[in-house]
């Protein structure tokens, strides 16, 4: 997806800062532009500022500094009930004293919509989430998954263009979560709405989003599409946070435009791709995905550096094999190999050589 300019974005954060106590900044200088119709996920560990950003957008928190714009209009001085944004809460926040139908009717009633129109819209929204038969139930009489569907329908029933979701699937079991992930993305694309989704579950972020903003320490560490984020992390936080990752530390020994060599602390030399390292002599953390490590020397480029490794543990996981190695003095180097008929199963104690393509091994900030 193209980088969007702030002035044509549907939702824009401009130099936004937030502090609760006037001393520490929870959100530090946030700039973010979301085009219309995008499914954007804010992903990060707890305390990283992602939920605060969502709350500022919804209007429940005010930005200490900076500007938040919705469709070109600054919303800093607009109260939450006039922003017209739909929201799905983590704990569903369905009104317990109302039936499902009344819950959905609520946003339409406060908009003074006629009864017949209201009923038609409520029915359509409930059908959309396959909850058409539940209009007369009370929230307490439904399972968590059903309540979350109703909450979703309630956020959509008044046809907002922007819908915020605050870890909506956090309380559900794995299977239900996967079904709902699929349904939510489908609905969002069908309706053409813009979604800002907050989660700490990276799988959820990768499978659902058009783009993901990885938060840490009040800043966006990287804003990219899921595959970019996984395959081309821009710094060591993102590399560590998204997916499984092997990290080796060392010093840049030689650097050119497309590749560099790194002398590890153990003295071994490896090939890597410079991503955000400076000059020769800088310390770096190199990051390599477990599934990109090659144990078959014949498949490496001629002249590529290899490392000596000793197999410590072999774990059969069904679809893949997970093998733990001792590499360059570290005991937690993991490789993953596909469970194919011709795949070797490494036994503990075996000594092998491992290597990789330089582009799969990214030299990042130390």
């Amino acid at each position, binding site marked *: 997806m193209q980088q969007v300019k702030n002035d044509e974005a549907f939702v824009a954060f401009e130099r936004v800062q937030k502090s609760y106590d006037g001393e520490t900044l929870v959100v530090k200088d946030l700039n973010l532009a979301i085009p219309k119709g995008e499914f954007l996920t804010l992903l990060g560990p707890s305390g990283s500022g992602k939920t605060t950003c969502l709350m500022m957008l919804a209007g429940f928190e005010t930005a200490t500094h900076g500007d938040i714009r919705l469709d070109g209009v600054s919303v800093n001085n607009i109260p939450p*009930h006039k922003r017209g944004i739909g929201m799905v809460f983590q*704990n569903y*926040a369905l009104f317990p004293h109302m039936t499902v139908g009344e819950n959905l009717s609520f946003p339409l009633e406060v908009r003074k919509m006629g009864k017949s129109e209201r009923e038609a819209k409520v029915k359509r929204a409930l059908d959309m989430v396959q909850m058409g038969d539940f209009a007369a139930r009370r929230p307490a009489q439904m399972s968590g998954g059903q309540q979350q569907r109703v909450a979703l329908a309630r956020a959509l029933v008044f046809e907002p263009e922007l819908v915020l979701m605050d870890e909506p699937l956090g309380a559900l079991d794995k299977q239900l979560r996967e079904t709902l992930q699929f349904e939510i993305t489908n609905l969002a694309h069908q309706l053409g709405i813009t979604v800002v989704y907050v989660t700490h579950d990276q799988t959820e972020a990768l499978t659902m989003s058009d783009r993901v903003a990885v938060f840490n320490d009040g800043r966006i560490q990287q804003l990219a599409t899921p595959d970019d984020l996984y395959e081309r992390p821009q710094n060591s936080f993102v590399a560590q946070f998204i997916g499984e990752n092997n990290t080796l530390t060392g010093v840049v020994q030689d650097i050119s435009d497309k590749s560099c060599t790194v002398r590890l602390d153990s003295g071994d030399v490896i090939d890597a791709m410079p991503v955000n390292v400076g000059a020769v002599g800088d310390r770096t953390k190199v990051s390599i995905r477990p599934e990109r490590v090659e144990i078959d020397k014949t498949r490496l480029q001629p002249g590529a550096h290899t490392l000596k490794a000793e197999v410590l543990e072999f774990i059969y996981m069904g679809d893949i094999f997970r093998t733990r190695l001792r590499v360059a003095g570290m005991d937690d180097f993991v490789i993953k190999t596909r469970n194919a008929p011709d795949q070797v199963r490494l036994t503990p104690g075996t000594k092998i050589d491992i290597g990789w393509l330089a582009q799969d091994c990214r030299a990042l900030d130390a």
Partner: protein
Amino acid sequence: MTSLPIYATTGQKIWHYTFRVIVGLILFFLIAPIIIIIPLSFNAESFFTFTPEMLALDPAGYSLRHYRDFFTNPDWIRPLQNSLIIAPFATVLSVSLGTLAAIGLSQSHVPYRRAIMAILISPMIVPLIISATGMFFFYSQMGLWMENTLGFSRSFTGYVKVILAHAALGIPFVIITVTATLVGFDHSLTRAAANMGATPTQTFFKVQMPLILPGVVSGGLFAFITSFDEVVVVLFVGAAAQKTLPWQMFTGLREQISPTILAAATVLVAISIVLLATVEMLRRRSERLRGLSPN
């Protein structure tokens, strides 16, 4: 009723039955003084004692004459009317102010919440006679000002004074019951309502109020009973024109020992039982709503 397990020792068996006897005695101790007035109020004679006919369960020993007296004698009707005027107004005031105070004090950003709460609840803790003395001085000044500066009649001023004083006594009950309901209140519900476009007023009446209603109503009932049963403050603050039912009973006990007082007391007990039963029903309803809510 749980039965004793077969492995109970002799000591456990003895304790099991002793315990029940103790519980029965406590119940008797609490209820007997109230229960005893009920048969006495149906006495056919103008005595405060059980007549031989009553003890023999002879129908001639019983009558409704004291109830007739209670509902026809102007000495009783007037105080009953006064109580029925003062208590509802005091209740409405207590409920509105107490509910607002409880909601305000439940918000974490309010400074000195505990101190304010303690001050608002103090009428419940300070000995009534002390509150009453303070109120006497405060309200006599206020009454004079209302009569002289604002030109209200003496009788109207008297009612306003008693109603305000009773409202102050009722507010702590409302604050306590509403605060208790607010503890279980999920604040994301008000956020959800705002998010869907409801103004703060709409959110309050359509979302928050229905959910804390059981607390509001039971607080209101306590406030009502407080005003309806109150004798000390009204003696200090009110004038003869504001004589309430408890006041009439109090003077009646000193001046003429008529069983009509017992009829009045029985009526008050009946009203209290009805109101408390309502509170209990509301409490069960709220537990049902809350017990099944997502949290």
